[in-house]
């Protein structure tokens, strides 16, 4: 099968989408390099470091969803966004509950398990 020739509009769209993937890649790269560099080369306080790592990770997840998986706020894509948001809600309840209950138990009964 040979390459299908592109008309002018398709060529433009193709370029725009290529640029979008490239942007996603660059943003993800920066958001990866920041936490790695902080852990490798600096001696900043642990809590600040953890918060920075967490913020970078969350931002990178959003970048991946937006640029690689094409999840946007556009109205005709709401159902996918709702599916993801609902899953995240379930996840927050399950994970948050697990951590809350277990660390509460550790504090009361197994202080050795506190990291």
């Amino acid at each position, binding site marked *: *099968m*040979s*390459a*299908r020739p*592109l008309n002018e509009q*398709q060529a433009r*769209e*193709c370029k*725009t*989408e*290529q*640029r*979008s*993937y*490239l*942007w*996603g*890649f660059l943003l*993800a*790269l920066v958001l*990866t390099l920041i*936490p*790695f560099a902080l*852990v490798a080369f600096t001696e900043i306080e*642990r809590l600040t*470091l*953890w918060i920075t*790592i*967490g913020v*970078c*990770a969350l931002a990178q*997840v959003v970048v*991946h*969803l937006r640029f*690689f*998986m*094409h*999840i*946007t706020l*556009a109205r*005709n*894509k709401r*159902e*996918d966004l709702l*599916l*993801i948001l609902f*899953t995240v809600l*379930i*996840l927050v309840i*399950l*994970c948050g509950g*697990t*951590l809350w209950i*277990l*660390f509460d138990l*550790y504090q009361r009964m197994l202080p*050795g*398990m*506190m*990291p």
Partner: protein
Amino acid sequence: MSSRNTHSLEGNSRHPGLNLGPAHAQEEDTREEMVFGFWVFMMSDLIIFGLLFATYVTMLGGTAGGPGPKELFEMKSAFIETMLLLTSSFTFGMASLALKYREDKTRLVFWLVVTLLLGVAFLFFELKDFHTMFDKGGVPSRSGYLSAFFSLVPLHGLHVTGACIWLLALLGQMTVHGLDAPVKTGILRLAILWHFLDIVWIGIFSLVYLGGLS
């Protein structure tokens, strides 16, 4: 990228993820259902990973006198693995665009093979990592902490292995049947899995590796 362009690109979207557009109209309805169904499966997988993350965090203190994250992990290989997986996500995006705009088999196969090689390289480094950990006494049965680690990280590796096998199968299907509708739908769904696995890896390198080493 301007919002006007975004609108014109995504105005006729039928299902989540990259839409192939009107040039691939055949079987568009089935594709819509299959891709959305795959998203639902992916989200259930996300719950599994999320809970394994939670288990890992609750087990952080349970090293039972065995080796902990600082002794076991190496920043360099975690970094290499991260870069390989991130780049493979990008090359899969290029493959999707080759499929969408050109139906150009050569270009599509090229990007898919690059993605496959990056995936295999990732697995190679991950297995090497596990080997180093075993050498340092970090086996799954050593402590609760290590059991939690080995249920989370290798499960992700297993998913990547599955995705690589799926990619090989799609390449085989493409050679036999050409670029027909099932192959196209397969590539769209595998793209979702591949990008999803990269997202899970963000959690792993941030929480397990960087969190453990800091």
